[in-house]
């Protein structure tokens, strides 16, 4: 699997560290909304298909990247710097009991 780092170009996956689901929305540090914290720490979208995820080019420029990757084919659809924050489209209350 090759991931194209915006700085370094296409590099082998062994140079990167997987940081997981990029859909999660971290509550404000002072937030006392336990459901929001629980969702941030424990809930995952885990789709079979295109997945929005965070990787770090830890064996290269060390930039954090936002990668869209297909979890069935392992095809990388896009890469970009993760900086600039992320607005989750999946902020939800349902999904667990």
């Amino acid at each position, binding site marked *: *699997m090759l991931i194209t780092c915006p700085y370094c170009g296409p590099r*082998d*996956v*062994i140079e990167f560290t*997987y940081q*997981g*689901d990029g859909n999660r929305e971290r509550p404000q540090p002072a937030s006392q909304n*336990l*459901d929001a914290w*629980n*969702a941030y*720490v*424990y*809930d*995952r*979208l*885990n*789709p*079979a298909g295109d*997945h929005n*995820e965070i990787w770090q080019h830890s064996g290269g420029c060390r930039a954090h990247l936002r990668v869209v*990757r297909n*979890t*069935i*084919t*392992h095809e990388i659809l896009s890469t970009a710097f993760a900086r600039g924050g992320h607005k989750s489209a*999946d902020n*939800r209350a*349902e*999904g*667990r*009991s």
Partner: protein
Amino acid sequence: MAEYSAFSLLKNALTGNKDWKPAWRKPDPKASYDVIVIGGGGHGLSTAYYLAKEHGITNVAVLEKGWLGSGNVGRNTTAVRSNYLLPQNTRFYEHSMKLWENLSHDLNYNVMFSQRGCLNLAHTPAQLDDYARRGNAMRHLGVDAELMSVDRIKRLVPALDVSGSARFPVLGGLMQPRAGTARHDAVAWGYARGADRRGVDIIENCEVTGFLRDGGRITGVTTTRGEIRAKKVALAVAGSTGQVMQLAGISHMPIESHVLQAFVSESLKPVVDTVLTFGMGHFYISQSDKGGLVYGGDLDGYNSYAQRGSLPIVDEVMSEMVALFPGLARVRMLRSWGGLCDMTMDGSPIIAAGPLPGMYLNCGWCYGGFKATPASGWCFAYTIAKDEPHEFNAPFTLDRFYRGLIIDDKGQGATPRLH
């Protein structure tokens, strides 16, 4: 149906082996059942078996999207052990071990359970201390465990490099003598036959495509072979739990699906007669009765629903094997494959009623589901039949993550790829 025995073997041998009957039927699905179990792997089949055997619930269908046992029950490295630190895990897996010890007799099917022991190698004094702690925790709950010196390890596994010049010198190990291996296909077939002969319908090539609802309650499933209704719908689809739960409208779970690879070498004469694990990386190895080395390592490390892995892990696993067994460096790898793992946020499984009314959930087996097969089905059947968990699976709820009751044996936190 004829019992399998030495006598029936002899009789059929003398009559040209023409009278063997199929081990299970191939029924068409009925319109409704008391219980539908989704997933015809080890856990689903054992659930159906114990529903029938322990609770008298025989109007049961097991729905399998492919062929019976084509998923993780045939993709694991067959190790069976109960060497956990935390009491919730120890009690559950020790119950499984006790079921394993009588499984071939119980099923009248030889699952080739071989209690050859499982030895965790320690390579630092701190690790050895940690193993002593875990061994004491196990013995405290009545599970067998013993610390082994390097001399004993050397006698047990002569091929292992225990010299001081090894890349990671061995300082000792923790042995569970009652641990071992079983033939995974036979486990699936044995449970299938046992369930079938008690009246359970095992329906292969029947993929669930959606859930039927009455209000909020799950009342059945739609499948590639039509609608099937049931009072209770039980999921045992570890690896694909995320996909199936999305069919029920539940988008988020405390689970990520990852791929784990496994490998088999060419057949060798006996060289490792225990299950051995490396302490300085993630590597485990045993030898099948046919002579092939069966081994594996870590997850590939990112979400995946592809039942195949990538080369970096192949390279890492081979390096770890050679670090332990320099003499095996030129052994050829024969086959490799991947299986899907439900990696939970604490490394422990989920066996519980819910999360929707009428639904029962068995998932999150990480990469340790095979050894749990008997107890998983046994506890899940209990939960389905009585609508309450047995004490062995009571801690393994879905909501434990949100109530501060996680069961994190490795102390790794909510990073599934590290469990």
